[in-house]
């Protein structure tokens, strides 16, 4: 356990990362940002039929300061964009975003003057779920994919400064 363990791909570092990732991925507390029809499917996914709590999303946090995952379900209009940015900025690190539905991915059916054509240009999105609306199984699948993504993350690596730089560009 020399300096290699801290600077390179040492055993201690990877084990520590695995521990951190295990903790983070097993309890992704969601923030249900439900605006439109996809919000109803999100509600069904959180309810007893397709229970999302069994995957760790136990405490549905209604304040952005205490959540991990921002599940954006529904159309975002241009009037709403500053609100979305503000809520994303209020979330504490580490944070992830799931965009549920065609409207959140790319504007959906509404190619009009007042609809934001996809939230990817507003906040960094991790998982996109197509569908109008996607079935609740789709939202659960997305959560599982997010758990896989978190487990493959490298929180202690030197890649972090690059990621922070990319996030600053969004502000």
């Amino acid at each position, binding site marked *: 356990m020399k300096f290699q363990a801290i600077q390179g791909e040492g055993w201690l570092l990877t084990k520590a990362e695995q521990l951190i990732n295990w903790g983070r991925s097993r309890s992704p507390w969601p923030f249900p940002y439900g*605006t*439109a029809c996809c*919000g*109803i499917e999100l509600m069904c996914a959180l309810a007893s039929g397709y229970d999302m709590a069994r995957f760790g999303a136990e405490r549905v946090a209604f304040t952005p300061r205490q959540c991990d995952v921002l599940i954006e379900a529904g*159309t975002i*209009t241009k009037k709403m964009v500053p609100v979305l940015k503000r*809520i994303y900025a209020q979330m504490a690190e580490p944070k992830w975003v799931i965009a549920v539905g065609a409207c959140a991915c790319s504007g959906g*059916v509404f190619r*009009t003057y007042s609809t934001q054509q996809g939230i990817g240009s507003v906040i960094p999105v991790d998982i996109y779920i197509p569908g109008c609306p996607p079935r609740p199984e789709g939202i659960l699948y997305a959560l599982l994919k997010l758990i896989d993504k978190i487990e493959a993350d490298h929180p202690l690596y030197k890649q972090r400064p690059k990621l922070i730089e990319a996030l600053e560009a969004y502000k």
Partner: protein
Amino acid sequence: MSIQFSLKGKGGKGVAKQLETICITTGPVEVGDYVTLNIGPIHPAMHGTLRVITKTDGETIVSAKPEIGYLHRGVEKLGENLTYSQFLPITDRLNYCSAICNNVAYEMAVEKLLGLQVPPKAQLIRMIMMELARIADHQVCVGILGVDLGALTPFFYLIIQREEIYEIFEWHHGARLTNSMGAIGGVEADLPERFHEKWPKLRDTIRKANDETDKLLTHNRIWMDRTIGVNAFCADDALNWGFTGPMLRACGVKRDLRKEEPYLMYDEVNFEIPTGKHGDVFDRYMVRMLEMEESVKIIDQAYALYKELPEDAPLMKKVPKIIKPPEGQIYHAIESPNGELGFFIKSDGSDKPYRIKIRPPCYMVYQAFEDLVKGEMISDLIACLSSLNVIAGELDR
């Protein structure tokens, strides 16, 4: 009324002078002394993008200005650029809790413009599906009203029943939530075979879930304290503000478009119109619970009428592929779960509508919000907002 008490001899002479008399008044205070509380546009009451900017004097609300438009997607302008059949899926996204009612309202408006009469089998299928959608909408409304006031259990009971209704929708036209049911001219598919076995069981489970919710809530002391007397509204005011639907019926006005201007085959089925007395949150909740029961009765009768028709009765009227109605403008309204949902369509003879105007029922209700909650407390505002069943997709279009 004012209470005066003084703190003498505490914290030194200068501070004591300031703290000498602390006057608590419960009368009107000058402007500028209120606390501005902004609720929304994203808040836990799960109603989507509604924003209320309140000014409160302690807990009491002095003014509450709603702000809407956070889900304005330009549906009406989109309608001017799509053909009549292309606009049908867009109407789903208006009141997404009961999308079938929007579809049928739009189809009936275009059929009125064309001067068509739909065959009876299609009318009965539309009626059955619309009443199922009404039950589903009321289930989610009552469930969310419970969640907002802290009663989480009825939500889970009612959502399971909503999933059962979703199953029927999926068997019939393939989608759970955004149905796009039917077509201009009728219905595209007959009732699925599995519906005939499912319906007798489903009506019992719906009634059972409603009974369980009733047992948990209606005579519950906490529920009664939080909902009886909250936001009482008189009928004259309600009519002046343009209320329709359960909100108006809770104020005591017995008005339902299914009885006043019957459409489809509603004049051949018997059902009651539940009305309240005071227009408070409890009355709105009771009206919705009783309407669910009436909807089950309507579906039973419509189903009996459906079984009398021959198997090969036509489902759709012959409609040209590209619909070009004659020039003119009409307005057609139906009774959606929230109230009077109307479509005004102006046609200029081409294949695209010239102007579509949607009359959302919760629009007229939500503009009276300040009158409803003035003088109440903040937690009563939350109860009021839930009981209005404001669906942002319909409100903002």
